């Protein structure tokens, strides 16, 4: 495919924006982890300084603080692992990927956005692997755009389900929110269409207020994306 410099630049800018959004979100969470650990270590210091002959160290509070610290360390490790996997998702522009992993990863990476929107974001994944050929990074990028649009349309306390199904020749990822129109601009549609093209996809949008977005894959063939709006 011959591409114009403008088109390459736009694609790069969109990729950077997606990468930036995810890393900013994870770094924010990591900062919260560090801030909490700093306060917990400060609390331990306060407890030690408060010790007097008539007031011994409060062992229960020490243990409780250490347990909370461990919880935060585990949380931090989870974010670092997610960040590392996400960074490496751009390593291979074309590889065999398990769509279950890809969906699970982008949903995990989008949990902060879900929290900020007060939306309950869940997945329904098949037990077996769902293999496709493509770029994990680009697949996550397209899914993230759908997730973000559906979550923005969803109201507080509502559920957004990312459902992956493999019924033979066709693999479908459905991002379903409440039955409500998803307000996206013509610019959004245009950019998504262009991005889909970048991964060899055909992007179809329909009118309506189903509150759903769908992506279709046919293994061994180019990715076909369909978004119903």
């Amino acid at each position, binding site marked *: 495919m011959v591409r114009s410099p403008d088109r390459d630049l736009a694609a790069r800018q969109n990729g950077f924006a997606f990468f930036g959004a995810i890393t900013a979100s994870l770094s924010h969470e990591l900062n919260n982890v560090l*801030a909490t650990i*700093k*306060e*917990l270590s400060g609390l331990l210091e*306060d407890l030690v300084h408060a010790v007097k002959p008539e007031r011994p160290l409060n062992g229960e509070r020490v243990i409780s603080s250490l347990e909370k610290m461990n919880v935060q360390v585990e949380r931090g490790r989870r974010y670092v692992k997610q960040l590392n996997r996400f960074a490496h998702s751009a390593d291979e522009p074309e590889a065999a990927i398990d769509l279950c992993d890809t969906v699970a990863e982008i949903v995990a990476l989008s949990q902060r956005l879900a929290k*900020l*929107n007060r939306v309950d974001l869940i997945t329904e994944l098949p037990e077996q692997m769902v293999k496709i050929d493509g770029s994990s990074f680009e697949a996550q990028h397209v899914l993230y755009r759908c997730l973000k649009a559906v979550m923005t349309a969803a109201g507080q306390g509502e559920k957004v389900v990312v459902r992956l199904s493999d019924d033979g020749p066709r693999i479908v990822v459905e991002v379903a929110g409440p039955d409500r129109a998803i307000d996206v601009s013509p610019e959004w549609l245009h950019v998504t269409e262009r991005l889909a093209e970048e991964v060899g996809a055909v992007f179809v949008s329909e009118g309506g207020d189903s509150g759903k977005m769908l992506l279709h894959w046919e293994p061994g063939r180019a990715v076909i994306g369909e978004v119903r709006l």
Partner: protein
Amino acid sequence: MSHEKVLLVDDEKDFVEVLAMRLETREFDVDMVLSGEEALVKAGQRGYDAILLDLAMPGMDGIETLRRLREINPDSQVIVLTGRATVKQATEIMKLGALDLLEKPVDIEVLVEGISQAATNKFRLSEQRIAERTEEIIKRHGW
């Protein structure tokens, strides 16, 4: 002994709970809430010497909460705590009348100093309001 009234507003439950404990051991009278909406309710019920406000929260964010807190009480002394703030956000925060913008993780002594400054400012403003009202009454009655 201080007993300044402090409101902590942050959706990070563990963070806010531990910070509240640490401030309480330093003799502050601390309330905590996990959202901007709850902060507005609390601020309407009780006068605080200092409000420590997180910027990125679900629902009403820190900037909108700050704007509304200052509408409820223009003398509110708000210190914004954040993991990060863009130049645009920082400018808006200061324009809205926040006392300070501190980056998390923050040193407890810096925070204590900020709260003390907030309490001093609030006291001065309160004195100023009393003086203005007294002068107004004197003028009105021609005393």
